[in-house]
């Protein structure tokens, strides 16, 4: 290959990469943009559209926002707070319980009948193989019997139940990668089992804990199906509120978009708060040969 063709090849691959990125960016960015402009449109502009650019194509209006700040305020805030509580709370419980379970699976050999650690892990993850709709009918019956329907405690339990397999699975691998000698060193330094976990294991598992927390948070935040089946008034979440607001006549896209924008804020805040823990700055080769 000559230098010229090589150069052309490099330019070609650079162009292809740019094109792919642009395509992906379009798919990722346009829905957000569309939601943003729709939240400031009149119904007329939505249905006669498509209009893309505010002030050129259409005149922005605060109509949706006035509605949210006015008549719909209580409903929206109620749903928002429920969603926040369920997402933040269930993710926290799932990560704490998941960390303990993962530590156990990573450090101690178990044997229940023919099942050993790896089988137990698989069994736990298998909870997430089936779609939630399969389990929701049974969950509904159980919740009714336990009087947990449409309660906050019930929803925290439901989301924890759904997130726990994921956190156990993710964290087991993380815990396994923390050299057991570090805990032995801490023991010799005079720290008991609990202090070893608190001072050594948890700080080193932090990237995994943060990642597991975020994934759990996102799932609960975005869930529709569990909330649809298990709540109707007291424990409704934001996705349900959005649906209820538009169910009466034709969909009120301007409202859906405006609340959708609000719904994007908490996950963004969560990511920016936890991002620094996800940097894998801490683990290094235990033998120290690099």
């Amino acid at each position, binding site marked *: 290959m000559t230098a010229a063709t090589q150069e052309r090849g490099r330019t070609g691959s650079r162009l292809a990469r740019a094109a792919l990125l642009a395509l992906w960016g379009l798919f990722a960015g346009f829905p957000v943009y569309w939601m943003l402009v729709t939240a400031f449109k009149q119904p007329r502009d939505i249905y006669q559209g498509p209009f893309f650019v505010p002030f050129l194509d259409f005149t922005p209006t605060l109509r949706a926002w006035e509605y949210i700040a006015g008549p719909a305020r209580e409903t929206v805030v109620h749903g928002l707070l429920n969603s926040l509580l369920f997402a933040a709370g269930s993710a926290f419980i799932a990560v704490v319980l998941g960390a303990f379970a993962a530590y156990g699976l990573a450090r101690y050999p178990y044997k229940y009948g023919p099942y050993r650690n790896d089988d137990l892990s698989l069994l736990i993850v298998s909870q997430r193989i089936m779609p939630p709709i399969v389990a929701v009918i049974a969950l509904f019956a159980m919740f009714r019997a336990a009087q947990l329907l449409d309660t906050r405690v019930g929803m925290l339990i439901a989301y924890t139940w759904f997130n726990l397999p994921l956190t156990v699975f993710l964290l087991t691998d993380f815990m396994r990668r923390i050299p057991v000698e*570090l805990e032995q060193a801490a*023991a*010799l330094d*005079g720290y008991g089992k609990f*202090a070893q976990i608190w001072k050594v294991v948890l700080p*080193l598992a932090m990237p995994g804990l943060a990642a597991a927390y975020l994934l759990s948070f996102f799932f609960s935040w975005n869930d529709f199906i569990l909330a649809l089946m298990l709540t109707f008034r007291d424990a409704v979440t934001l996705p349900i509120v959005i649906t209820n607001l538009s169910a009466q006549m034709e969909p009120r896209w301007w409202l859906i978009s405006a609340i959708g924008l609000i719904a994007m804020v908490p996950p963004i805040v969560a990511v920016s708060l936890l991002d620094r823990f996800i940097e894998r700055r801490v683990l290094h080769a*235990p033998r*120290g040969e690099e």
Partner: protein
Amino acid sequence: MSTLQLIDVSKDYDNRPAVSRLTLECEDGEFLVLLGQSGAGKSTTLRLIAGIETPTQGDIRFDGEAVTHLPPERRDVAMAFESYALYPHLTVREHLEFPLRAPRRRLAPAVIAQRVQQVAELLEIGALLSRRPTQLSGGQRQRVSLGRALVRQARLTLLDEPVAHLDARLRHDLRGELKRHQRNSGATSIYATPDFSEAAAVADRIAVLINGELRQVDAPANVYDHPADVDVALMAGDLKMNLFEADRLSGIAPLPGEARQVGIRPSDIRVLGRAEPSTLAGKVYVTEPMGYDQIVRVETGGRIATARMPMDQERFEIGQPVWLAPDWRRQHLFDGRGRRLGTAPN
């Protein structure tokens, strides 16, 4: 500072013995070295003493008091791991403070600062105190791991190959510093190494482990001059002892009837350019000048024998016919089962 007793201690992993029926005592303030090749059970022994492992049978006592089933955090034992086992999220200073801040100790901040300062000076890591393990070289990591073990005066200090992975010169310097520190602090210390000259350099007594069995516990000079059996003899000395079948030496050296193997250290063999009585004929395989000494490896009777002589003696060429003149007064005799025969030569 404590005395240590291991009484008939065994440890099996999956029914394979790692340490078998070990009985060993270590006095208060003693520097004891466990000498053995990898897999001989040195690390297992240290881990048993530390409480990381529980013995399959036997008793471990500190100051006469059984600690066999005490967890490590309640034994007050410090250990430098061969793998360093440094905490990736802590700085060097935090590593040194970590044992001093343990719930059981709770020292005053001024005491902690002073101890950290002392150890940092001893190990010359004062300039690294704010770094994390990833920012340290291998040798620096090793010194931090040593520092964490030395910073508190534990009842026992265990050092698992503490100067392995370092380059030769640093190794020599550091083992000298370790010995000095141990003498000054009087800390009962147990040091594991596969290297005899390192063991001899620091030890009050050497305990030789072969395949999980304790074969000899003695002062370094005695292990060298009076090895209890063939395996110990081969471990002791930085150049391996030469072993000759007794049959081959009949007529050359006066041997008692029950001797099966005869050991001669390389430094007890001279290489001659011409035949003399009581010598073994051979051909020079290779010569290795070492500055002050030369090592001459000689092929004799289908084997390589090693001799070590001062440089100022005769020089040899590869392939040259030579004669080996062992100092028969310094021979080591072993019976058919490898055990030492008779008393030691001098």
